[in-house]
């Protein structure tokens, strides 16, 4: 009697250990992302990625944690600063922020593993820092003009093909009581898309030169662009309350046909093509160049990573699983689910006409400039956006604003090299 009991006990212990061993065999990947994988159209890719990868790799346990917008950035920053509690993979927009983590030695160099994955150059470059690849960017967003086609048609307007034409178009729209541009400048960063384009159209490579400290930020192209921007604001092209509206409010203005144009990133394609979100017909166009007097051309495109994933140093022991995940993130299978973003993976077709338009704009790109607030060091990016907001305030001397931003850059990046 007693013996059998001991046997049973031993058996139980063995069983427990073996199940524990089975669990130990299972590789666990913790992934920090922004969006929850639910049924919403703009969360479709994340859902397909997580569910698809889990279904295909039952031996890897994926623990995907959605942290939301400031949450993802804050938590990543703090765990990186402490060097502990890191996830294996985190969602990132690449650029200087990812670079800061790489410099601190917190990321895993996957250059050899990832360089062979087919994808667009711009996307790969965004996830590269100092010659090393740390992750993948399955989607890339370009900035352009979202245009309410219905409004333009009803008013016999054509989408401007030169910057000079904007004045006429905007004046006509204003006379009809329609706000020409939606912006949402309460959130500070939305103004950047247009400003980047205007600077490029005036000064070509000005922003790259300024970032490399060859020219100052208060040089000609920047000032002229700011002055034109300010003159448009003064004419009321951004409505009467641009500073009170957030980015979400700007989307509502577009969705309900109260505004005719929205200059922003192509990540809005999913929403603007979604009949539940808007009942307007919206198109996407490249930002035009000056008819005369400008340097930049229509094929100079502003863009940035739309969704990207990078691996941290704790992934070193699980390299195979991590690479498998990153490769799956770049697979046509996962990317097919995305309705609105421009996919970096060759062979994945755009799901809507709007996305196709955006992808076509991306296809014409001769140069791609990364969004400044992704590319510049973090120490000057939020001051940059703060400065843009001051353009909207009455009585701002844009030259002065740019000069004080330049002073900040001298302090944080370095003086202009002669």
């Amino acid at each position: 009697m007693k013996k059998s009991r001991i046997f049973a006990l031993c058996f139980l212990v063995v069983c427990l250990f073996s199940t524990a061993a089975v669990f130990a065999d299972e590789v666990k990947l913790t992934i920090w992302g922004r969006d929850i994988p639910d049924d919403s159209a703009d969360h479709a890719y994340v859902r397909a990625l997580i569910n698809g990868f889990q279904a295909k790799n039952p031996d890897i346990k994926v623990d995907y944690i959605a942290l939301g917008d400031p949450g993802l950035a804050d938590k990543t920053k703090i765990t990186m600063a402490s060097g502990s509690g890191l996830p294996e993979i985190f969602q990132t927009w690449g650029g200087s922020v990812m670079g800061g983590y790489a410099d601190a030695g917190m990321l895993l160099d996957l250059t050899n593993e990832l360089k062979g994955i087919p994808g667009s150059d711009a996307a790969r470059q965004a996830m590269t820092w100092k010659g090393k690849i740390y992750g993948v960017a399955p989607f890339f967003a370009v900035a352009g003009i979202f245009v309410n086609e219905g409004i333009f048609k009803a008013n016999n307007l054509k989408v401007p093909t030169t910057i000079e034409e904007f004045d006429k178009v905007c004046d006509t729209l204003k006379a009809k009581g329609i706000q020409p541009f939606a912006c949402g400048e309460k959130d500070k960063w939305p103004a950047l898309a247009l400003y980047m384009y205007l600077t490029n159209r005036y000064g070509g490579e000005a922003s790259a030169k300024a970032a490399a400290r060859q020219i100052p930020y208060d040089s000609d192209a920047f000032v002229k662009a700011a002055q034109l921007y300010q003159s448009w604001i003064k004419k009321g092209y951004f409505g009467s309350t641009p500073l009170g509206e957030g980015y979400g409010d700007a989307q509502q203005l577009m969705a309900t046909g109260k505004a005719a144009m929205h200059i922003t990133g192509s990540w809005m394609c999913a929403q603007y093509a979604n009949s539940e979100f808007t009942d307007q017909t919206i198109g996407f166009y490249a930002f035009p160049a000056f008819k005369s007097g400008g340097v930049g051309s229509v094929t100079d495109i502003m863009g940035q990573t739309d969704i990207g994933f990078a691996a941290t140093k704790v992934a070193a022991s699980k390299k195979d699983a991590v690479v498998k995940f990153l490769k799956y993130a770049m697979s046509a299978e996962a990317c097919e689910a995305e309705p609105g973003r421009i996919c970096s993976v060759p062979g994945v077709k755009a799901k809507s006409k709007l996305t196709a338009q955006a992808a076509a704009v991306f296809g014409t790109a001769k140069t791609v400039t990364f969004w400044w607030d992704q590319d510049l060091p973090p120490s000057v990016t939020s001051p940059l956006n703060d400065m843009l907001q001051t353009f909207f305030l009455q009585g701002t001397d844009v030259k002065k604003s740019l000069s004080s931003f330049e002073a900040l850059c001298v302090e944080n990046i370095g003086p202009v090299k002669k």
Partner: protein
Amino acid sequence: MNVFKRKAVLRTEPAKRKKKDPGRKVFVFLCVLPAILFLAVFLYYPIEETFRLSTMKTTGLSNEVFVGTDNYEKLFRDEEFLAGLRHVFSWAFWSIIIQLPLSFFIAFSLTYYSNKLTKPLQAIFYLPNVLPSAITAMLGKFVFAPNYGLIVSLGKALGWKWLASIDFLGNPDLAFWSVFAVATWAYSGFYVIYLMSRIEQIPKDLREAAELDGASMWCYARKIVLPELNYPLRILAILCTVGSLKLFDLPNMMTMGGPGNATVTLGITLYRHGFINWNYGKAAAIGVVIFVLSLVFTILQFSLGRKEDETI
């Protein structure tokens, strides 16, 4: 007259000090120990770390380089920080001038006129206090937003153009007050309940006696309740001041400190330097400034009018 005399007697009765009492020290020690332990384990090290980092140049990730008082010197040349400092002081000033009297009015009226209508209201005034600040900020945005905000929509519905065209959050002169109004809505509930509980502590017979003497409500409020609440009101003034110095959630979520620097607070500059600009040393310096100012103002407020305080 009778009332005031009696109160005076109550106050000035000599407080006899204990002679040698060995249990006293043990009691004091054991009572303070748990609180000190909690702080020692969880807060003293971070506080020390804040002071140390405020003399360093670091992104939080990179190596720390000692820079002495450089971070502080830079702060006092920083537009945003100076704007934050100004706003924090005006925020504290106006909370003491507006929120506290309003709360006192509500608290006093609710306790003085306790009738069928006012009784259920007690619960309502405390209600916003149970909401997380993210939701408070969201509700605030819906009241003050342009185009579709509650007030603007009301203006449209009534045909008042002046009201419909106000940009509460985008106008630098109004943004501060819009955020302040939301804060008043959200935070006053606590002050009301706190003051109510303190008013209830006032002996009931003082009121009865006052009524027998024919004192009006205002007279009772001014001559009896207000002096009794001197100390609690000073506590609330401290809460307002320190709360303003640390203020972050509401202005950050409603306006991100904008437009321009119109609603920047020290809490926002600290967050921005630490988390977005990756200038951790400067953020620590702001933390120290908040800390030192809080300490100075608290000591000041405690020592103001200390005399009455001590007789209790």
